[in-house]
């Protein structure tokens, strides 16, 4: 924790309350880091055809699930003990929501790992890896930046991530169209191309969850809910 965050959440009369909020933040970032690695390794396992790495991801997902339960429990206890208000309340509520997003990102990584295991046995798909790498890097950056925006309480960075989500959607649509065309040209590859299509879909969902995290960061910092609003509206909230 740097000093800036201590200033925001660490100056209650009750030091124990400070500790509880700090721990909640720290544990959330630990879970975020773990999920980031899961996504990175899942893409690596797919591209390299590494069944062993894919199996490791499946096992690690249980750790992610345990962290989700643990964080929910911590947040519930803070509400019960402290009845947080204002920025503290927004932190706790946002963490509860963002934890669900992280867990779902973990699930998407597991899905990719399963495809990686299948393709490791059946052989590489003939197309789609370039797109997987490209979209993979894009959504990994979004996730990393979303967690960074949370850590630094940076709503401007969170807004940038919201804008990026549209580009990921466009990239996904373009990649899906390209794969579809290839499958129509050579029906023997449908099965393996469909597997890659699922991977692309999973990565696009990772981008959506990163975007959800960014929206929650804006709520935490600015106190306004920007879910289901336009990017322009979110921009108005952030820039004032």
């Amino acid at each position, binding site marked *: 924790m740097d000093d800036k965050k201590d200033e925001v959440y660490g*100056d*209650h*009369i*009750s030091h124990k*309350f400070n500790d509880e909020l700090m721990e909640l933040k720290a544990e959330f970032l630990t879970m975020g880091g773990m999920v980031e690695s899961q996504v990175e390794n899942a893409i690596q396992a797919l591209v390299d055809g590494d069944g062993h790495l894919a199996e490791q991801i499946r096992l690690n997902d249980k750790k992610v699930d345990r962290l989700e339960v643990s964080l929910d429990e911590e947040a519930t206890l803070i509400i019960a003990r*402290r*009845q*947080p*208000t*204002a*920025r*503290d*309340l*927004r932190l706790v509520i946002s963490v509860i929501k963002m934890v669900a997003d992280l867990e779902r990102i973990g699930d998407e990584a597991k899905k990719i790992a399963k495809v990686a295991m299948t393709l490791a046995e059946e052989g590489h798909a003939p197309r789609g890896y370039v797109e997987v790498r490209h979209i993979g890097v894009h959504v990994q950056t979004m996730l990393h930046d979303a967690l960074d925006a949370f850590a630094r309480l940076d709503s401007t960075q969170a807004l940038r991530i919201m804008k990026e989500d549209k580009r990921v959607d466009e990239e996904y649509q373009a990649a899906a169209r390209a794969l579809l065309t290839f499958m129509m040209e050579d029906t023997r590859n449908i099965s393996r191309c469909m597997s890659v299509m699922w991977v692309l879909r999973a990565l696009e969902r990772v981008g959506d969850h990163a975007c959800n995290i960014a929206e929650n960061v804006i709520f935490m910092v*600015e*106190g*306004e809910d920007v879910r289901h609003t336009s990017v322009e509206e979110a921009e108005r909230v952030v820039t004032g």
Partner: protein
Amino acid sequence: MNTMNTTVTSETDMPEEKTIPVADEQPAEAKIEEGTTVGHPFSDDPKFKLRNVEVFYGEDRAIKNISLDIGRNEVIAFIGPSGCGKSTFLRCLNRMNDSIDICRVKGGLELDDEDIYDSRRDVVELRARVGMVFQKPNPFPKSIYDNVAYGPRIHGLANRKSDLDDIVENSLRKAGLWEEVKDRLDATATGMSGGQQQRLCIARAIAVSPEVVLMDEPCSALDPIATARVEELIAELSESYTIVIVTHSMQQAARVSNRTAYFHLGHLVEVNETSKVFTSPEHPLTESYITGRFG
């Protein structure tokens, strides 16, 4: 001696603003601009119109240029650290401060467009319209019946015994106490539990058909169950009365009020919808207080 002021000062007619530093323990970025309240201090349908109110205890200025509307049939909560002036301000609303010799009240204070501090005003009649419930239950050492019947009797609200019986029953019913005491109306009120005594005081206040009920920390001496009953009562009473409640319990303010007013060192810092105050307050001092960073 109270300073009379029959002129209502408009919102735009504020004295020149000046920025004053706040005490060391508060956030450095938090400044109070005297006479300026963030949020929504004014109402479209005010019961009370309070403008540029100042209260002095001798030379000490306890309330510093506060302007606020209290809406008809709204529940407004006054919160703030001890000594911030919220009880002093509350007591201006039915001239309870009159009993303090060194206390002077300045500014425009109107109830239904009539000056509260007009020298010709009958204070007894004012207090019948603006009832008060105190921190500590203070029933008279009389029977339960006589406690509730006291006000209607002195105000001549009932000509016959049956009318008085009706008033007592209705008041006790509104206060949620009737079922508990209907078989022992002659029992002494001081033998009741603390929660029952406080609800009796509320029944006594509403027996004279007030338009406003002021509550000064009404639950601070009560256990959680009795507190829940009083809060339930506040919700029911708000359909017919304007309620102003001073409370040290932020959760209570969040539960019972429509708007919350945050007082600090005699200033009215922020007034906003209660849901906004407790999720994203506008003023950093409000935020620091309600999140437990000072107080």
